[in-house]
C-alpha cells in the first residue's frame, strides 16, 4: 500500500495543529499533577465547559476573542472553587480518593452540561475564515492560528513560571511542599491558583477547539484520556515533555487515520501509552527523577 506524499504532509500539518491544542490541555493536567499529585479526572470536562462557555458568550456577543477571555476567566474561577471545596480536604489522603473525587466531579459536570445545553454539538464560529492552498486542499488559516495561539499561551505560562514571585512560589511548592510552606509560601492558595490556571488553560483549548470539532457534553472523557496519555508519555509533571508527547501522539494518530478510520486511529495512542508504561514508566523525556 502506498500513500501519496501530499497526503502525508497534510496529515503532518493536521497532527501538529491537533498536537498543540492537546499540549495546551495536557500542560494544565501535568501542572496540577506536578504540584499536588492529583490526576484531575475532570480535566477534559473543564475543556468541555470552557467550550460551552465560549459558545454561549459568542452567541451573546458575536466576539470570538471576548468569548475566549470570558471562558478562561469563568472556568479558572470555577476551577479554583472546585479545588478549594473538593480537593483541598483530600490533600495528604490516599491517592485513590482524589481519583474517585475527580471522577465524581467529572460525572456531575458532564451531566450538568447535558442538562444545560442538550446532547447536540455546538459549533463555535471561527474568527478567521480565510484559507490557503495546501496541495489539493483549501486549508483554513484558523487551524494554523489555533496552533500558534496554543503555543503562545503555553509560552506565556512558561515565562510566568520562570520569572517573578508567583512562578517561584509554584516551582518551590512543586519541589517541596513542606519546605515551601515553612518558607512562608501559602501552599493551599498556590494549589488553588495552579488548579485555576490549569482549568483556564483547559477552557482556552475548549474554545479554540470549538470551531474545529464542535463542543459536546461528552467530549470530556476523550480529552482527559488523551491528555493523560500525553502526560504519562511525556513524564508526569514535565511541561516540556508533555508538549513533545502531545505532538508525537497527534502526529501518530494523524498518520494512522490515513490507513484506518479515525475511531480506530485512537488506538494508536493507547498503544503508545501501554508501551511507555511497560518500558519507560517515567516517560520518554524524563532524564532522572527530581
Amino acid at each position, binding site marked *: 500500500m502506498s500513500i501519496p506524499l501530499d497526503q502525508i504532509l497534510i496529515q503532518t500539518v493536521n497532527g501538529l495543529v491537533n498536537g498543540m491544542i492537546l499540549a495546551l490541555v495536557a500542560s494544565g493536567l501535568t501542572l496540577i499533577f506536578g504540584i499536588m499529585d492529583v490526576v484531575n479526572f475532570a480535566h477534559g470536562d473543564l475543556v468541555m465547559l470552557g467550550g460551552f462557555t465560549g459558545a454561549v458568550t459568542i452567541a451573546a456577543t458575536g466576539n470570538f476573542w471576548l468569548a475566549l477571555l470570558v471562558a478562561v476567566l469563568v472556568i479558572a474561577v470555577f476551577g479554583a472553587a472546585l479545588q478549594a471545596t473538593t480537593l483541598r480536604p483530600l490533600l495528604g489522603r490516599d491517592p485513590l480518593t482524589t481519583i474517585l473525587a475527580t471522577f465524581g466531579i467529572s460525572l456531575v459536570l458532564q451531566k450538568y452540561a447535558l442538562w444545560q445545553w442538550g446532547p447536540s454539538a455546538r459549533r463555535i464560529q471561527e474568527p478567521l475564515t480565510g484559507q490557503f492552498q495546501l496541495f489539493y486542499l483549501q486549508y483554513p488559516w484558523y487551524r494554523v492560528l489555533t496552533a500558534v495561539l496554543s503555543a503562545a499561551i503555553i509560552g506565556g505560562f512558561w515565562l510566568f513560571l520562570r520569572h517573578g*514571585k508567583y512562578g517561584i512560589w509554584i516551582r*518551590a511548592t512543586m519541589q517541596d511542599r513542606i*519546605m515551601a*510552606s*515553612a518558607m512562608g509560601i501559602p501552599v493551599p492558595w498556590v494549589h488553588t491558583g495552579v488548579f485555576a490556571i490549569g482549568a483556564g488553560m483547559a477552557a482556552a483549548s475548549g474554545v479554540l477547539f470549538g470551531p474545529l470539532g464542535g463542543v459536546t457534553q461528552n467530549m470530556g472523557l476523550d480529552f482527559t484520556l488523551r491528555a493523560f496519555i500525553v502526560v504519562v508519555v511525556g513524564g508526569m509533571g514535565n511541561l516540556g515533555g508533555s508538549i513533545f508527547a502531545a505532538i508525537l501522539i497527534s502526529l501518530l494518530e494523524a498518520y494512522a487515520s490515513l490507513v484506518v478510520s479515525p475511531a480506530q486511529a485512537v488506538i494508536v495512542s493507547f498503544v503508545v501509552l501501554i508501551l511507555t508504561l511497560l518500558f519507560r514508566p517515567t516517560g520518554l523525556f524524563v532524564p532522572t527523577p527530581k
Partner: protein
Amino acid sequence: MLTLTEVHTYYGKSHILLGVSLEVQPGEVVGLLGRNGVGKSTTLKTIMGLVRPSGGHVRFEGREIAGTAPHRLAHAGLAWVPEDRRIFRLLTVMENLRTGLDRPGMTEARRRELLDKVYAHFPVLAERRSQAGGTLSGGEQQMLAIARAMMLEPKIILLDEPTEGLMPRMVGQIREIITLLHQDRVAILLVEQNVPLTLDVSDRVYIMEKGLVRHHATAAELRADHAVIHQYLGV
C-alpha cells in the same frame, strides 16, 4: 517567647512526643540534645506546624500556635532549617532566597539590605547566585538553608543538626553564624549531636530521652557536669 507545655505528637500510630515542655526566651540560644530518634526533630516540626500535636500547648509570644498553618508561622517570626536542608534543588540560589523575601510588606531597600547581609556572611552564595541549588556542595547547601531562613527575618530559628556531615572547617563557619545571629538577638533552638559545639554556643540546654525532656541546665553547668552528659548521651 516560645513555650511548649506537655506536647504530645503522634506519627500515625506511634507516639513520638510524650509530653515535651521547654521554653526559649527572646535572643536566647537553647540547645536540644539527645540520642537519635528521641524526638528532637519532631519537636521542631511540631513547633513549625508541620506536624499537628495531639495534646498540650505550643505558645509563641503568648499566642497558641498549635494547628496554625506553617506559612503563617513563617510570617509570624519562626524559621525552620531542617536536618536534610531541603534546598529547592531546581531553583537557583537567588530564587531559593527569594522564597523567603517575597512576602507582604517588604520594601526594595530592605530586600537589598538582607541580601547584602547574607552575601557578606556567605560570599560563596553571592558567587553562585544564578546556579541551581542542587548543584551546591553539602556545606554550601547548609549555608543556603540558613541564609534562606534569615530572609524571613525570624525572631527564632529552629536549627536542626546544622553540622551533620560537614567538614570541620564548615563546622567552624556554622559556629560563627550562630554566634552572629545570637549577637543580632535572634533566638535559636538548636538540635545537635555535636555536644561540645552545643555547649559552646548555647545559653541553656535541654536533654531529651524517649520523647521527653529529662534534663535541663545552663550550658555552663553542663560543661562542668560530665556525668549527666555521659548518662544521657553516652559521650
